[in-house]
């Protein structure tokens, strides 16, 4: 080969290898891969990562900033949660910062009206009243009701102030309202809170069973991931097990309908069938399962003051088989309205050793008088067939709140919890006292008032100071009018920290302007235990201040500077480091702020710079010991998961002659929570401006109700006039109605019943019995 040819040959070789790194955009045209991304058309926009503010999925977003304002949103392609996707709420979420009626100044109620005052004066007043009330009426006359929308530092400081400094356990968050049964279920079945698996299970499962969850509207991006899984593998089956046909049903492969409150019975029937057909994984059970009975006939929590403490007694496999005999699919068909053949078919999917099954559920299962038991029963199915704690085999409960999955309760912000452990446990109290530098006797060993009890004590006058932050109990509590009356009558002082006027600010004596989301630094924890950090990237308007600093400012005014020594620039980092001392153990170890900044969130436990994606599995979880075999359920002292024998017990209220319809309520895609933020976002508001009640078309015909007609719904607690829709978005079967609960102009919780699960304290807020009246006064047959 001549030198010329050789040089040309080498050059060509170079060109070819460069070309292989390039990409074809059109025939004959090659460009380097990096040049495919068009340059930003508006170079003035910078992009910062943040987890979404709305819902519990915790999508990663990129927030576009220009001139100090958030102006755009992109899905973050590097987010392991959302992989570049978002839902309509996420895309428009930044507009929630700029609503016209944003609260920018503190307000104090004078002469019945809220008038603006300087923030420092308002904080002084809050601290003064808090101190005064505690001195006059006892330490348990004060309470704080925060939120699963709190960041972890918010929750941690609230617990530290009230439990550590003031010595009262009257600390609660909206986790109680939305997720308590999930927590109690995990606690009783596995001994520890926190999801067992993670979202990666969606990418691996062969069968999805959705237990009464309209995933398309409650967790849209998880729904998208699930559909993507099926697109990639068309053998995947999605089964929607629910009381009505929803948007999720239209995408599912099969819709199996049942009456509300039947999930527990159906789960037991599935276990019955698994045992009958000998699909139970006997060696897994022998090695890793213990059977327990608990208390039965536990009531419905109406007017209960505290949480029921369950008493486990040991049982055997034979006891369990005998117990299941009452849940034969034919009998459960009578209770649930779901055909026995369908129950048997579901059991066959769970029992098929070749298929990985993921069960997904959420609020509708949890908000039930037997919410904890139903969680146990769904875990039982997976435990019976050994499909748990491994990729794709996943009983998974979602959460609807950005920090309701794993963060808020872990920070000690529920009545019975501490930042690690419980108030009842002496060792846990001592640990908290050591970290905080206070005498251990300061922490009260008796749990405080869980949510409904807290408001009942307010009603009775036992609680006289209540601080509500980032949630709206004056819209979301069941039997709403009772608690609205409690909040407006009587001699008490209510402080509300909020960003927009809501029904809660209506009852406030002091309103503190809250900074939202990107206006302050924080950390959220989503349903798969992923902690995600966000910086303050836009300035809060006016005097608005984040809840973290509101709590610090009040604590300092109460004289607790030493307990709240945080510096203004580094507060979150310092709080996080302190909180981390509670979790220096592979079962719950936390990442540092630096870890969180560098990555798109990190799942806890975070041990040796690795996330724990599947717990209790020695292959994936450093806290699990291989000496116990393939699984180590270290949450319980016997290193076993527990199958609880939970019988079906009826609902607190079922339809009857006077109130013949089930009314169920829940979320819709476009609006979130009580609408405080999403109603101020024009696109979302216009897409779904107000609530409605969906009625079956045959029922409507029988009642003479036409589409768009305003009807009156009446329950034993109250009544509500609302627009009827037929075949709008979901189709309730005969005898059922559905109305979303985001709309303060149509507060559906006026109709519901304040029963709760006695074990978890979670209110049964998503269903009740109603009748439908036409406004001419005539009611249904």
């Amino acid at each position, binding site marked *: 080969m001549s030198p010329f040819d050789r040089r040309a040959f080498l050059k060509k070789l170079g060109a070819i290898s460069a070309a292989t790194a390039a990409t074809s955009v059109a025939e004959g045209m090659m460009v380097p891969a990096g040049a495919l991304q068009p340059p930003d058309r508006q170079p003035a926009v910078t992009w910062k990562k943040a987890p979404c503010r709305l819902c519990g999925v915790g999508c990663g977003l990129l927030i576009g900033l220009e001139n100090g304002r958030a102006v755009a949103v992109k899905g973050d392609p590097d987010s392991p949660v959302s992989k570049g996707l978002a839902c309509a709420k996420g895309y428009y979420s930044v507009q929630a910062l700029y609503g016209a009626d944003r609260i920018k100044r503190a307000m104090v109620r004078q002469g019945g009206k809220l008038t603006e005052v300087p923030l420092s004066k308002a904080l002084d007043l809050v601290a003064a009243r808090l101190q005064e009330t505690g001195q006059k009426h006892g330490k348990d006359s004060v309470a704080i009701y925060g939120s699963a929308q709190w960041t972890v530092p918010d929750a941690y400081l609230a617990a530290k102030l009230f439990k550590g400094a003031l010595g009262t356990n009257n600390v609660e968050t909206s986790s109680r309202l939305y997720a308590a049964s999930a927590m109690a279920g995990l606690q009783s079945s596995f001994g520890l809170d926190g999801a067992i698996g993670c979202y990666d299970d969606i990418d691996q499962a062969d069968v999805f069973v959705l237990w009464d969850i309209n995933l398309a509207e409650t967790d849209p991006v998880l729904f998208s991931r699930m559909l993507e899984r099926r697109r990639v593998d068309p053998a995947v089956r999605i089964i929607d097990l629910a009381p009505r046909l929803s948007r999720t049903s239209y995408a599912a492969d099969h819709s199996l309908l049942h009456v509300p409150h039947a999930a527990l019975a159906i789960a037991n029937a599935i276990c019955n069938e698994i045992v009958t057909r000998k699909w139970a994984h006997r060696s897994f059970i022998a090695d890793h399962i213990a059977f327990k009975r608990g208390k039965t006939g536990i009531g419905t929590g109406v007017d209960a003051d505290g949480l029921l403490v369950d008493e486990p007694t040991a049982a055997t496999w034979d006891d369990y088989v005998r117990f299941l005999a009452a849940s034969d699919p034919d009998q459960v068909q009578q209770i649930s309205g779901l055909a026995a053949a369908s129950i048997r*078919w579901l059991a066959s999917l769970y029992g098929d050793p070749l298929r990985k099954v993921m069960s997904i559920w959420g609020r509708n299962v949890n908000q039930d008088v037997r919410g904890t038991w139903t969680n146990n029963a769904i875990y039982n199915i997976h435990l019976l067939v050994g499909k748990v704690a491994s990729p794709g085999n996943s009983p998974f409960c979602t959460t609807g709140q950005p920090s309701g999955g794993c963060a808020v309760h872990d920070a000690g912000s529920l009545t019975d919890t501490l930042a690690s452990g419980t108030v009842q446990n002496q060792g846990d109290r001592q640990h908290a006292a050591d970290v905080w530098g206070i005498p251990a006797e300061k922490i009260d060993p008796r749990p405080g008032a869980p949510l409904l009890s807290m408001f009942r004590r307010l009603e009775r006058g036992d609680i006289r100071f209540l601080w509500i932050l980032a949630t709206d109990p004056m819209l979301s509590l069941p039997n709403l009018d009772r608690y609205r009356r409690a909040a407006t009558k009587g001699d008490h002082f209510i402080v509300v920290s909020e960003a927009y006027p809501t029904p809660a600010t209506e009852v406030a004596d002091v309103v503190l302007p809250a900074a939202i989301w990107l206006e302050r630094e924080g950390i959220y924890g989503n349903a798969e235990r992923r902690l995600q950090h966000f910086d303050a990237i836009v300035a809060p308007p006016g005097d608005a201040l984040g809840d973290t600093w509101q709590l610090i400012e009040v604590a300092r005014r109460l004289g607790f500077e030493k307990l709240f020594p945080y510096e203004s620039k580094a507060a979150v980092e310092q709080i996080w480091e302190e909180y981390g001392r509670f979790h220096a153990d592979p079962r719950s170890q936390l990442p540092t702020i630096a870890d969180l900044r560098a990555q798109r969130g990190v799942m806890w436990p975070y041990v040796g710079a690795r996330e724990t994606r599947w717990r209790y599995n020695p292959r994936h979880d450093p806290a699990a010991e291989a000496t116990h075999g393939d699984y180590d359920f270290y949450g319980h002292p016997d290193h076993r998961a527990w199958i609880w024998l939970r019988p079906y017990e009826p609902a607190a209220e079922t339809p009857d002659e006077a109130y013949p319809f089930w009314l169920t309520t829940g979320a819709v895609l476009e609006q979130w929570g009580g609408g405080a933020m999403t109603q101020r976002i024009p696109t979302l508001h216009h*897409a779904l*401006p107000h609530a409605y009640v969906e009625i079956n078309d045959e029922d409507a015909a029988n009642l003479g109700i036409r589409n768009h007609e305003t009807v009156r719904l009446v329950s034993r607690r109250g*009544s509500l006039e609302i627009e009827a829709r037929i*075949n709008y978005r979901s189709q309730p079967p005969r005898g059922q109605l559905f109305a979303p609960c985001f709309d303060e102009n149509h507060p559906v919780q006026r109709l519901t019943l304040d029963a709760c699960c006695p074990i978890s304290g979670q209110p049964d807020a998503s269903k009740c019995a109603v009748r439908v009246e036409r406004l001419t006064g005539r009611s249904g047959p």
Partner: protein
Amino acid sequence: MTASSRNLSGALLGLFLIASAVVAVIALRVGVKRALAPPPPGTAPLSIPLVTAPAEPIQAEEQVFRTAPGVLAIPPNEPRERQAHPRTVKTYRFIRAFPGAPPRIPHALRPDEFRTAACRTCHQRGGYSLRFAAYVPVTPHPERGICLQCHLGEDSLMAVPVPAMDPNLRCPQCHGSGGVPRAAATLTWPTSVWPTIPSTTEGEFPPPIPHSLQFRENCLTCHSGPSAVAQIRTSHPERADCRTCHLTAGTDTLPFVRPTASGVLQTGSVP
């Protein structure tokens, strides 16, 4: 081996093979049966009646998850066969009298096609039509069979003003054998105001749906594939749940109004 024992072992082998085959078939059938569709609901007497779903699904909810077969058969980023007759917003609007109008048929029909309305042979699946040298638009409502009830062709009296002759029109489409020149417009028809998507920063927000969903519930038939109007072709046709991100632009243009202060705390009916 003796002949008889060979026969015996042969017979046993045969028996074994048959038995295995039978077991395999049974296992397959049982396995398949276990795995496939759920059996129909039972009919035993009940204290709670079986909960049954309404018979007709909601079109606007269901159709978004249905892809007409063949719409995605030709990936949109493959080289086009021909570039003539690209469908654009301009040609789209040209054959619609107003936003939401059923498009008129912009091509000639043979008499037998007119009589039998055999439109679906092309418009159900789309694809490239040699006859018209264009990609065929796909109907979002193939279940409706009487096409000519709404979609009128060149012989119609539904005279739409033709502001300018489309240079891509082929003469035989109007002046084909037996065809007549289009009647002069005798109608004063206001210029339609077509819905537009509000422009957003960087175009990053997923655009809302500016049209009614009636008859247009299946997004992919119009927004993907080579026959899609170029300006509205989606970059991500493989995603099944369009309405998770793309919202309908509501007709309620009033901003959010809170209840009055006294209204919140009223017990009883909301005014």
